[in-house]
């Protein structure tokens, strides 16, 4: 197949763009500096389509579609912002804030949190919904890292980076609905995990203050998820 046959042209917010057939709407948009909010997505990891913040309108589609998993198609007409979509996004964010204890002022990630950044960017000024204030555990058994479930948004980035990049498969999800928790091994304390290599990748990719390095507690916990695409390229290089 020729290279051209693999190219799709579409419009995103009335801008003509072209993309490779295997690219998602999100990738095509970002390459053209069109911003779509995301939370569960992280370049270098598989997609789960769980946070629903990247939902966009595609002309002719019955429902809103997640940009992170939807492939581009020839002639697609994508709208990334509209009063309706923006309203849904702020409400989805509110649901995130209300379900656990996201009190930014006392969080290690204050200032470096993707949830907080999204709220500021999407103009979510207040939470209409009652806070759930669940009493969730904090596991500080690991010598270097801590998991605070009160800040977890269940994006499963930790689960994916651990399985897909580190290959340790330490992290998993247990329970369902609002009772879901990320766990290490079969819910052993993190410090007792026999599979954890202490590589710290999960901490780096965690968008919130749920996973943090102990030395950073109380300080600004800067995170560096940028290593992922680089790692992936290296890995793909090795496979060839």
């Amino acid at each position: 197949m020729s290279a051209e046959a693999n190219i799709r042209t579409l419009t995103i917010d009335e801008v003509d763009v072209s993309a490779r057939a295997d690219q998602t709407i999100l990738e095509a948009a970002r390459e053209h500096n069109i911003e779509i909010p995301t939370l569960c997505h992280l370049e270098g990891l598989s997609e789960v389509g769980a946070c629903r913040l990247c939902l966009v309108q595609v002309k002719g589609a019955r429902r809103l579609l997640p940009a992170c998993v939807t492939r581009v198609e020839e002639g697609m007409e994508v709208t990334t912002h509209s009063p309706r979509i923006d309203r849904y996004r702020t409400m989805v964010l509110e649901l995130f804030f209300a379900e656990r204890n996201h009190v930014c002022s006392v969080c290690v990630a204050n200032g470096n949190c993707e949830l907080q950044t999204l709220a500021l960017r999407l103009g979510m000024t207040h939470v209409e919904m009652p806070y759930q204030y669940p009493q969730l555990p904090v596991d500080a058994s690991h010598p270097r890292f801590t998991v605070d479930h009160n800040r977890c948004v269940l994006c499963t980035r930790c689960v994916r980076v651990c399985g897909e990049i580190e290959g340790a498969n330490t992290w998993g999800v247990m329970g369902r609905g609002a009772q879901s928790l990320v766990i290490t091994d079969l819910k052993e304390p993190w410090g007792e995990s026999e599979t954890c290599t202490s590589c710290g990748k999960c901490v780096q990719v965690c968008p919130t203050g749920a996973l943090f390095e102990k030395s950073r507690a109380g300080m600004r916990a800067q995170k560096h998820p940028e290593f992922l695409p680089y790692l992936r390229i290296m890995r793909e290089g090795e496979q060839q």
Partner: protein
Amino acid sequence: MNAEELQQLAAEARDERPQFDYEVNVCMGTGCLSQHSDRVKNALEKEAEISGRKCHVRRTGCMGLCAAGPMVLVEPAETRYGHVHEGDAQEIVASLGGDPVARLDPQLRGYFEGQKHVVLENSGHIDPEKIEEYIARDGYEALVKAVTEMSPGQVIEQIMKSGLRGRGGGGYPTGLKWDTVAKVKGAQKYVICNGDEGDPGAFMDRSVLESDPQRVIEGMAIAAYAIGAAKGYIYVRAEYPLAVQRLTVALQQARRRGLLGSGICETTFNFDIDIRLGAGAFVCGEETALIASIEGKRGTPRPRPPYPAVSGLWGAPTLINNVETFANVAPILRHGGEWFSSMGTARSKGTKVFALTGKIQRTGLVEVPMGMTLRQIIFGIGGGVPDGRKFKAVQTGGPSGGCLPEEHLDLSISYDALISAGSMMGSGGMIVMDDTSCMVSVARFFMEFCMTESCGKCVPCRAGTVQMYELLTRITKGVATHRDLDRLTDLCEVVGATSLCGLGQTAPNPVLSTLRYFRHEYLAHIDEKRCPAGVCEIGTGHPADSAEVTVAGEVHV
């Protein structure tokens, strides 16, 4: 087995029948067994032997009217008895050939008149653990015909012509789905039968699997031939042990007869089926979650596309249909697609099995042609609301559906009519409510179901159902405001529009439909602090609830 052998076997099995003057069928489905129908069967066998009459006592599957269990059907007279006890056996046997035992005949006829049995044609008539009895009633004729006389394309054409739509809830055209999977290229393809059936109050699929398992196996084998699959899975909830046992026996018998396995009907067609047990999570009935579960992963849905037809089990093209959908396949091939499409409405063909429950005289399974009105089902077949109470609403579609009021009783049942009325066909649950039901509480019940069954993957469903459940609780406690009602409506919209899978997308439906038809009940709770049905104990709510009012927005960001 080839066509001649099948015919011979069918003839042999039929020949056995005239040995007996009478057949006494005893339901040994889950419902009747729980009422000790096994003892009734033993007693009948004993009495038949003592009497010396040519009478065959047979174990069968569900006869439909579970509320009147144990059920007994006497043939050829077609007499049905309900609430039969061991002590009635002698009288029943003595009455054979004469008048039915009047004492035992609680006028069940009304229940069966007006029904049309296609899926349930063998239920209550054959022993589900004897493949010969299925074959005697034309079983496997369709499979043999398909693989020996028809091309896969011709099979699909008949299914398309029939107008059959998926009975698992969505109503997607079955022929179209088969055609898609058939056209996708792939060396390995799979057929999956969805027997997860998790809607509260639904037991249609369980009944079919318990009463006539070969029918589902035959349907799957025909599908496999049509799409080019060699391997199938039946996913059944582990809570259905009897269904699993009967399926296991049925699979062994089908293999032994060469109707499953390699070289079916002396052709090159190979197909076999394994059973997979579900652990009872409602969401595992969603097709992508079900596939993940079969793969041994956590049963959570994933975004579609890609649809299972393109990338399903282990990434291979996969056909997934509901139990009842597969159960319709063999009769369609036997009688032709046109026969099937002659039943029903313009866009909903054939029949549908419903589990009729709630405030109704006769509870049980009914199979009716599409297009029948709700009134005919509820008041005709079901005998209406008992105890002189007044009909209030009928809930269809389970947690994805809605409640329809009296004005809609004359609605003709079809996928589209139910959706436009604000409900759904769903898998076939039909719960009747009388004036003692509070519609806000009903909505809250279904929301609680969705909240606890949410897989937790996506936030609108995981957190949104919790918020909606709490708002509904506030209303039932009489502490809600109009702002709460607006917030509930907003949440319905956002959860419906943004959730990842059907569970979250349809979770607001019970709320939306009750808001549409019974808004006055919501308002009575809010404005007058009164529950019109007298169900909600207003004023006794936990004090914290009223104090909480709208502690919403501390801004933490």
